[in-house]
């Protein structure tokens, strides 16, 4: 087919096109993903038994996760557009999320230093292997799959980065959900291991992004 014919064919019956479709899908992905995550954790692990009494701590942990999700979401939204590729633009886009994560880890370390030496290890590991590293990406999986579906409307050009941003966003949602189960309330545990769990989700996103987000 000649290029002129292609142009002719494409231009014949255009429809109005707005980004609303993408935004609707993203909103749907986040809401449904959150609900599915809650169902996952409720069915497979159950909420923490003292969730009523511990509500303030649960809210703090979920709020912390939501904060990271918000910044990751902003990044994902920018990477959905083709022009996010330039290095200067990228640095500007990644900085806010990077700062939030660095300050979270800094807070975690400072708190850890302030803990009595005898309790440090327990505060750091939550008294066992920090399973949240694996469980946070798991709880974010429904969100991640739905976000990939939503991004089909978009035109990302930095696929690995867009995958990482979606992964971090899903990890943030997964961590919000995971907070309903997690019974370790120490600040250093939450800031460090939650961030690691979200980071793992982002890393997986970066690895599969190029495959899943191709268009």
């Amino acid at each position, binding site marked *: *087919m*000649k*290029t*002129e014919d*292609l*142009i*002719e*064919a*494409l*231009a*014949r*019956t*255009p*429809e*109005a*096109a*707005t*980004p609303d*479709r*993408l935004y609707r899908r993203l909103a749907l992905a986040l809401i449904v993903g959150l609900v599915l995550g809650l169902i996952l954790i409720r069915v497979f692990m159950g909420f923490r038994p003292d969730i009523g009494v511990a509500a303030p701590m649960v809210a703090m942990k979920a709020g912390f996760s939501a904060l990271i999700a918000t910044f990751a979401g902003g990044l994902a939204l920018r990477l*959905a*557009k*083709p*022009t996010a*590729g330039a290095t200067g633009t990228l640095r500007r886009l990644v900085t806010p999320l990077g700062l939030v994560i660095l300050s979270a880890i800094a807070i975690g370390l400072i708190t850890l230093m302030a803990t009595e030496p005898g309790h440090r290890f327990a505060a750091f590991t939550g008294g066992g292997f920090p399973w949240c590293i694996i469980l946070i990406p798991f709880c974010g999986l429904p969100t991640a799959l739905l976000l990939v579906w939503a991004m089909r*409307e*978009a*035109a990302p*050009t930095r*696929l*690995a*980065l867009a995958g990482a941003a979606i992964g971090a966003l899903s990890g943030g949602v997964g961590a919000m959900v995971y907070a309903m189960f997690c019974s370790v309330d120490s600040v250093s545990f939450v800031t460090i291991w939650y961030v690691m769990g979200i980071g793992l989700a982002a890393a997986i996103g*970066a690895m599969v992004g*190029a*495959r899943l987000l*191709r*268009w």
Partner: protein
Amino acid sequence: MLSGGSILTPDETQLHAWMLGAQAGDPVATHRLLDGLAPRLRAFFRSKGARPEDAEDLVQETLIAIYTKRAMFDPDQKLLAWTYAIARYRMIDRWRRTGKRGLDLPIEDFEHALSAEETEAGDPSRDIARLLGDLPPKQRTSIELVKLKELSIAEASAQTGWSASDIKISIHRGLKTLMRLVGTSATGDIS
């Protein structure tokens, strides 16, 4: 970025206005936009070292991408920066598909890519009609009726018995699939 030579008549402001028209669903503006961008894209791909027949395929893929992803253009953005970002992406995607740059393609995809390259050499203007054959029947018929036989959505709807929105969606999906089929579909890694 390219300097605006004398052959590239419509300037950025003009193209930008046409893009807004294309987003609003204006066929004339869409036509002018794609027409205005085609020579720039051709020059862009050639300046990147693509062979003329490859360049033309890339121009076509990019035009389809610009059309199907026009909603992703932000009106306060620069149109040409947006266009070249998509052009660059299509070029990288093509490298991956055709196995240049030593990427790890599954072997059958690689063979497929090679044979596709051979036919391209003999037939520079890609036969989209052949690619249409790979689409699901509903998408194919919708595209054929509306985009190739110039029927209106309503006429196509009457002829097929499918609803108008059904046809629009099929065209939309079909174009997206077509965009993937131009060239060879394969997966690979990019970062």
